[in-house]
């Protein structure tokens, strides 16, 4: 029996961590419902958000500030509407009212037809019109603006007849003003996809690890596990590793479907993204592990996961441009790993960012991972108290 005792290793054992991991894989393999969810969640989310990836939106809300009421003004507006991009929803009475509509996001465009628009046309001077655009979504406005330029060559065809026929062929000009102030980061529709990756990984990562541990507690198997000479770090590694793989599978589904179904480009390096992914996934898993220390059962684990998930959806820059949020919201967002990951994944996937470009957002992720892991292993209770 003493010989037996000597074979027992002291300290951290990689073999034990591996055995714990193997056990987790076997259990996962037999949990068909969870396996299905792992694959279905990213697919369903991508399809749900797919409409938002529609890259050529039509009938955008437009306010027309008409300071000229000539027939030419009306023709010009009709021409804009005929492009199908513009839908005149408001006719503000003053420039200030028009600006307010734009600021509040009630309209995407303000078209200003200056005084003397008609008179200038008749005099043979080049007519001027102004389009101000909300650049919250730059890709959404490029189509309409290009179309609006063309309106000058077609809209007046009917008006330039008879005595005005000499005006034919004279191009008017449209001055366009894009208000970047609403979106200094150049938030685009494509942004949804890398963001979705951050959100889905947060959701499954935190929930699955938190559940994996509370399940042991709920079923009473924790008592058995704790009665054996297992170290907290071994349990943590064993519990977390299978879900790292799952995170990769989900990330791959998102990138693949985004490209295949919605043509979202992959500009940067997938290798670099994979390296960041491992850190981000580890952050979430450690966070789930930490939450599970306080959860008594799986229901509580899910509720606590949602407490992290909700701010990750709302305050990470996934749905709203981060810099556009109030300061308190930005402060909260700065404590969410998803915030940094979403910036990085957008940078890599959409802009082709390299390591140096992402570093300022990558080091906070690394810091998160280390801090959360340390706290989680410390918080892991080796007793049933």
């Amino acid at each position: 029996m003493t010989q037996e005792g000597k074979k027992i290793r002291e300290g951290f054992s990689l073999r034990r961590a591996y055995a714990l991991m193997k056990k987790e894989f076997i259990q996962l393999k037999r949990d068909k419902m969870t396996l299905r969810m792992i694959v279905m969640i990213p697919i369903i989310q991508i399809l749900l958000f797919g409409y938002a990836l529609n890259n050529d939106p039509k009938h955008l809300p437009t306010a027309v500030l008409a300071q000229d009421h000539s027939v030419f003004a009306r023709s010009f507006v009709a021409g804009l509407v005929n492009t199908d991009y513009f839908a005149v929803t408001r006719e503000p009475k003053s420039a200030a009212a028009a600006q307010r509509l734009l600021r509040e996001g009630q309209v995407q465009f303000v078209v200003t037809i200056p005084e003397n628009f008609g008179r200038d046309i008749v005099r043979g001077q080049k007519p001027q019109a102004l389009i101000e655009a909300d650049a919250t979504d730059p890709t959404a406005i490029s189509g309409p603006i290009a179309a609006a330029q063309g309106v000058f060559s077609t809209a007046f065809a009917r008006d330039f007849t008879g005595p005005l026929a000499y005006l034919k062929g004279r191009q008017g000009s449209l001055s366009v003003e894009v208000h970047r102030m609403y979106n200094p980061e150049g938030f685009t529709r494509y942004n949804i996809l890398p963001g979705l990756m951050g959100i889905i990984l947060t959701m499954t990562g935190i929930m699955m690890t938190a559940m994996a541990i509370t399940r042991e507690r709920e079923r009473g198997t924790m008592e058995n596990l704790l009665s054996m000479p297992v170290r907290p770090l071994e349990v943590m590694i064993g519990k977390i590793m299978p879900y790292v793989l799952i995170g990769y599978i989900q990330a791959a589904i998102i990138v693949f479907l985004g490209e295949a179904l919605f043509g979202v480009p992959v500009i940067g390096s997938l290798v670099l993204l994979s390296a960041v992914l491992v850190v981000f996934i580890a952050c979430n898993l450690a966070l789930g592990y930490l939450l599970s220390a306080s959860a008594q059962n799986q229901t509580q684990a899910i509720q606590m996961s949602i407490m992290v998930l909700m701010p990750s959806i709302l305050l990470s820059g996934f749905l709203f441009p981060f810099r556009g949020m109030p300061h308190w919201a930005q402060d909260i967002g700065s404590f969410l790993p998803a915030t940094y990951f979403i910036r990085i994944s957008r940078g890599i996937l959409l802009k082709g960012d390299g390591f140096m470009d992402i570093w300022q957002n990558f080091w906070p992720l690394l810091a998160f991972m280390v801090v959360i892991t340390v706290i989680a292993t410390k918080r892991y209770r080796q007793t049933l108290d």
Partner: protein
Amino acid sequence: MSDGGANNGVSYAIDARGLTKIYDGRAVVDHVDIQVPRGKIYGFLGPNGSGKTTSIRLLCGLLTPDDGTGSCLGMDLRTHAAQIKRRVGYMTQRFSLWDDLSIRENLQFVTEMYGLDRPRERAQDALKALGLAERAEQLAGQLSGGWKQRLSLAACTIHNPDLLLLDEPTAGVDPKARREFWDEIHRLAASGLTVLVSTHYMDEAERCHEIIYMAYGKIVARGSVDDVIGHAGLSTWALYARDLNALRRELEKDPAVSTLASFGESLHVSGTDAKALEAALKGYETQPGFAAERIATSLEDVFIHYMAGVKDNFA
């Protein structure tokens, strides 16, 4: 590492003093002393909720005591929990192996958790010894209650521990398997293993070297079965009468009677004062068909007597 706590020349595998665990302001285990010499089998008895499971958890380091000191296999409970776990086998009251792992996977996993070499072979050996080799791939959750117990026992002895803490290991196990189980326990004890086993079965208590009887968090009696029965100082009679129910109703009010139990044709009464009880019984001789016969006091009579007594102390 010394080879166990020594005291008066006896080497103790478990030596705990004043162990206390408080839940919600209530001492569930209340200054309990437990000493179990090496190589002995000690039975741990007591009514439901008396604190047996909690005591066992304290002994294997799963709970931190609120008061008291103790050592297991010569190692301090508070500071050496990790080392103690390597050499202790603990079988939980509730089945705590993994339902969604197969029998083989469970055994192999446990082997690996103890850091033992050749986990595959060891699991296979344990399967053969259990007689479950053909069902090795079946999920543990699908086993019958008795088989789950037997699998748990195999799992908690797979690392050849020096001390076994068994929490109601034979609950729901059939008589033949129970007998085999106890033969196995005795065989292990003969090779030096120490066993503390909680049970509600009186016949199992009699298979232990000594018993510890616990009620309401306190140890009420301890020693060999004969000692415990002797110390209780009960005298017991078997009574017969045509109308046992009527007799029972009368006796329930009798102050000389401390416990009463119906046994089919007879009624067993015990009392602490032998003379008073004998005198009291004389008063019932007029009942039709009455007969009284002095019998040996059983462990069960003693326990029921203690339960009533302790309850009075707590009331």
